[in-house]
């Protein structure tokens, strides 16, 4: 009976918390069966590598990912590019460094330790180029939106060529089914064939959206695989420990007639 209460309370907490913060008036996000969902969820390496390609070739022209370093791309639990690939990716960017001995700032080829290069020097520059709208940093965006990866994927899929006629769109505003208020400042970012995958995967809008969303899910939670692995071991340990403690308790309390 007491355990029942505990369990019920936990369930109430769980269900309350997930419902409390639901979003506004837009359509419910599409549901995707992500490889990283569930108790044993893992990222799909190939998908993360494709996702990085989409980010680099499409998103990165407006969106920063300033909390990521190039070295993260080679770390365990992520896209796991080889060390040589990581070096080559980093070297493809010109990074501002300095000051040098003469006190001058200078440009040099990127190194794995460098943070992802941002497309704009600051927020104001970003707004100036994007009609007043600020393209958010994508590093933790999946965690910063209720609905998470499903929501991000839905936004990418939510553009329509012919928006409903009752919606009035101002200059620089686009229609999106899944955006709260149905209006978004980001133009449709992906079209069939926007990128060319080297592994032969067909670059449909849905495929690219999934890949880049998975990449963003990893960037928001880079230790997800480790977390779930340790979590499983921890809970298993605690379960076994609880059985041992339970029987010890029974044994100790058997010395007196009161039931525990």
């Amino acid at each position: 009976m007491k355990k029942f209460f505990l369990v019920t309370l936990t369930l109430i907490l769980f269900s309350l918390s997930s419902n409390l913060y639901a979003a506004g008036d837009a359509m419910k996000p599409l549901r995707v069966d992500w490889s990283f969902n569930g108790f044993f969820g893992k990222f799909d390496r190939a998908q993360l590598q494709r996702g990085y390609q989409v980010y680099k070739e499409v998103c990165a022209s407006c969106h920063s990912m300033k909390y990521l370093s190039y070295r993260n791309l080679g770390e365990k639990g992520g896209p796991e590019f080889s060390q040589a690939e990581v070096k080559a990716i980093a070297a493809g960017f010109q990074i501002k460094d300095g000051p040098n001995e003469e006190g001058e700032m200078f440009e040099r080829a990127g190194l794995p330790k460098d943070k992802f290069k941002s497309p704009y020097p600051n927020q104001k520059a970003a707004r100036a180029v994007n009609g007043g709208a600020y393209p958010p940093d994508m590093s933790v965006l999946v965690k910063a939106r209720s609905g998470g990866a499903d929501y991000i994927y839905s936004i990418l899929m939510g553009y329509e060529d012919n928006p409903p006629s009752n919606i009035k769109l101002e200059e620089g505003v686009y229609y999106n089914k899944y955006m709260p208020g149905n209006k978004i400042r980001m133009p449709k970012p992906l079209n069939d064939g926007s990128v060319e995958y080297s592994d032969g995967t067909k670059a449909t809008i849905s495929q690219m959206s999934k890949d880049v969303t998975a990449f963003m899910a990893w960037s928001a939670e880079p230790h997800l695989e480790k977390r779930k692995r340790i979590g499983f071991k921890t809970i298993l340990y605690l379960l076994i420990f609880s059985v041992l403690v339970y029987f010890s308790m029974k044994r100790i309390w058997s010395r007196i007639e009161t039931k525990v």
Partner: protein
Amino acid sequence: MSETNYKPSSAFGKWFDERLPLLTLFNGHLMQYPTPKNLNYWWTFGGILTFCLVTQIITGIVLAMHYTAHADLAFSSVEHIMRDVNYGWLIRYIHANGASMFFLAVYIHIFRALFYGSYKSPREVIWIIGIIIYILMMAAAFMGYVLPWGQMSFWGATVITNLFSAIPLIGESITQWLWGGYSVDNPTLNRFFSLHYLIPFLILGLVILHIWALHVPGNNNPVGIDLKKDGTDTVPFHPYIVIKDLFALVIFMIIFAGFVFYAPNVLGHSDNYIPADPLVTPAHIVPEWYLLPFYAILRSVPDKLGGVVLMFGAIFILAALPWLDTSKVRSAVFRPIYKQFFWILVIDVLVLGYMGAMPAEGSYLLISRIATVYYFAHFLIIMPVLGYVEKTKPVPLSIADPIFSGSGNFVAAKKNKNVG
């Protein structure tokens, strides 16, 4: 409790104990302390709460080693903890979810006291110290939520600190004094960090007083009657209660681990992963779940000052409970009518919590208002009146014997057995 025949076994122990009787103190309060035999699992939350406090302090100290309390750097220092500090993600998720677990446990602990009448004579001081701890917990949790400097941090801090501006005449000055400026900004973050580090140690001190005050009359128990003086109703704290508390703690830790490892962000708000922006107000500003009932009370009053008064009143009214409750019987087990009102109060608080998360409009607002009125009515009307009109069930003479006094209250029972 501590006058025992205890003698340390080692020569060093004897030498030390004669100079500072620390071992005698521990032996008296953590080993031999007589505890009622009939405590149920609702009594294990004291130990669980101690665990929560220690966990928060340890993880918090480690987080503070890597965190930067500056408006421009706080958010990215948290991301640094999540990404680059070894097991930083684990420590932060334990700390963040630990706060929720702490409140889950404290709410069970408080409602247990309400159900079994643990706040009544002679335990009023334990209860009031507990209320102070609870208030400090809310302050610590609120300030802790500000530290990541996300959108909810910033706007939560703005809403809560603005409450003080409702105080007539000096409100404005107090608010600016709290902010350290003319709005929530870097000075606010700095002082919140400082206070967030301080308060847990105040709580720790009060916890010691809470336990000390508890060990004077001893624990209440599910039957709610005083124990026999001959010690037949009690067991020594160690090993009986220690092992039982440990079992409950392990079960609690399983639930805790479930959140930390598999739903670490479900109790937080996604907006707090957006860096604080004073120019963009979130659509709904909501506090953490454990503050929602009070937030609902605050918003249910159309007048700002009135809302603030009621919100703080809702907490402080608990301190008067030992005198508002006029019933002679402690445990709700023997109070058939109070028992029902107790569960209605539980539901009322859950309803308030739900309303606190909803926009304050239409039927949500109406329901919050009804629930707020009921909350106060429970303490100000139902509790005092019930003591006079309720016909309580016969109370047993001792927790071991199923013999009932037949008189319906434990005062008579005490007279019969001469245990008072």
